[in-house]
């Protein structure tokens, strides 16, 4: 393998790793607030990308993306209010099946609105063939956009959770819901907010990577399972570790093309998921002791 090819694989790994990390962070936000794994997380990414492509016909690119993120955010909130908010202490099995149902409905709605076609936003700067040289390695500017925007989004999210009143209220709810309620925090609204935030970051991720990876009505499920792999790899609920884990999975997948046909790319990442679940469900960065206390 030439050194050029080696770096190309790394760049591809980073690109895919970014989107996996974004999905994983979406999982974490909802998991932290509710203890639920939202199986429809991948659909938020798909919806964001699809909506942005449609809106781009009428709006300039930044406005289309912003609107797509807001719309997906509203859908995320609506889903929580309609399907989850009023349930009284639902069992884990029940929540799994409900979120799976939601993911199917979103996918089918997308199929009826957009059809089976593959869509993509245009490259934010330049074209598909433009390349920026980074110390001798040629990188598509869109990769820089995707990584940059995701990094900024994660940073903002961290600032939000650490320094704003609302973010701290959400954290209080995830730490101890009853205590938070005694302090006058409206726990249910925090859950709705977590769905909205999670949908928003998913949609943003969907927009920035869509020029490279394309979106289709059914691109949600593979993303969800890989995002989940990353979330587990990093330790469920730990968003910073999710970024590192995302990069690891992206790289592994990208380099797997070296040994196996590209058609089996998904097999690699899911096999990794199963392997982690079997040997270390607390993740490589998580602590085994705390995970034992959680209800998986």
């Amino acid at each position, binding site marked *: 393998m030439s050194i050029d090819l080696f770096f190309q694989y790394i760049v591809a790994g980073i690109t895919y790793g970014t989107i996996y990390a974004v999905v994983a962070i979406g999982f974490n936000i909802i998991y932290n607030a509710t203890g639920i794994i939202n199986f429809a997380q991948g659909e938020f990414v798909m919806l964001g990308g699809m909506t942005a492509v449609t809106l781009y016909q009428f709006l300039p690119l930044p406005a289309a993306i912003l609107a797509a993120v807001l719309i997906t955010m509203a859908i995320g909130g609506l889903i929580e209010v309609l399907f989850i908010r009023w349930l009284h202490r639902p069992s884990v099995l029940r929540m799994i099946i409900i979120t799976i*149902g939601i993911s*199917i409905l979103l996918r089918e709605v997308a199929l*009826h609105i957009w059809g089976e076609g593959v869509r993509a936003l245009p490259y934010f700067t330049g074209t598909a063939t433009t390349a920026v040289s980074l110390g001798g390695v040629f990188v598509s500017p869109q990769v820089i956009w995707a990584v940059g925007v995701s990094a900024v989004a994660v940073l903002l999210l961290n600032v939000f959770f650490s320094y704003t009143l609302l973010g701290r209220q959400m954290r209080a709810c995830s730490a101890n819901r009853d205590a938070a309620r005694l302090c006058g925090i409206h726990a249910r609204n925090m859950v709705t907010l977590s769905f909205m935030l999670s949908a928003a970051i998913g949609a943003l991720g969907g927009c920035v990577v869509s020029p490279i990876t394309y979106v289709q009505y059914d691109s949600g499920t593979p993303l969800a399972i890989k995002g989940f792999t990353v979330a*587990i790899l990093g330790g469920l609920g730990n968003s910073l570790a999710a970024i590192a884990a995302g990069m690891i999975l992206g790289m592994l997948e990208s380099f797997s093309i070296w040994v196996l046909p590209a058609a*089996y790319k*998904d097999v690699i990442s899911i096999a990794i998921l199963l392997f982690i679940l079997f040997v270390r469900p607390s993740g490589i960065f998580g602590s085994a002791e705390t995970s034992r206390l959680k209800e998986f």
Partner: protein
Amino acid sequence: MTSRSLSVLAFAGVIVTIQLVTKATGSEYHLTQLTMTAYYSLLTIGLCMLVGYAGQISIGHAGFFAIGGYVAAYLTTHDFSAQSGSVPLSLLSALGVLVKRPDLYGGDLLTFHPWAAFVTALALTIIVAYLVGGPVLKLKGHYLAMATLGFGIIVYRIVLGTTALGAADGITNVPGFAVVPGIEVSGKTSLRVVNYYTAWGIVAVSMVLLMNLQHSRVGRALASIHGAEDAADAMGIPTASYKLKIFVLSAVFASVAGILLTHYNAGIGPSEASVMKSVRYVAIVAIGGMANLWGVLCMSLLLNYLSLRGYLGSFDDAVFGAILILIMLFAPEGFLRRQIIGDIKGFLSRRSGEREAS
């Protein structure tokens, strides 16, 4: 006469009535979809034991269906004559595993006998189910769901990406399966009625087996695992081994369904392994009442038939998604339950109780 044999008799009555009605009205073409429905039902009643009775979710059972179907299809269509001189091949011929049959173009194909393919496919399914089930069933809740989903996607990706298995086209021209002389599982129009009764006969026998299992020591153990696994463990029930056994059993049901349906349809495609199929089976178990074999069978008959006849149109998958959500929102214990009236009463009284409390 016990209520169990009564219900089987009633079921047989329904099956016969349906056939007589289609004969009387000259609409026997319905039997084709009804036969396919029977095989899908075989899978769902097996899954019902796992999800409903033992409380272990699996979103990957289409994977076992596909393993059965694909192995049977491959072994009965792949021409082994190129390797016919080799030692393992001559050994297999000597055992009568390989048979010659004419292909479409007048040449000879050297393939596995359907029975040999059946046994191989089943054996492979059992091995895979043990290997996957062992570690997977240690997981609970979200992790179990994701792991089984992952297993399903792996099978789907493998059959979709492997050219020997026909990639996106799947395997076609699978021969019929003469189970015993006179009964052949195949899509021939002349054999439509025979196939209809064969398929539903297999379902009926399976129902009897599963009902007996459910009312046995094993069945009660499974129910206790569903109720409280730790408590069951403390009572001395080997929970891990029971969970694994019922997982393998449900995989066998799925595999048999896959094998027979592949012979019946004369082919199998990658869509049979898709996630949506697995979700669909869980949806049927959920709407059938989770731990209610007859409810699951009824719903499977109804929904698969509607879906296969195309009555659900392009909303096919959406209908199953909506069913899942509605059932889990409003009747998480399942829809078809004997004590449904008691539930409504309980629901109303709980509501008024809550109002008084608040």
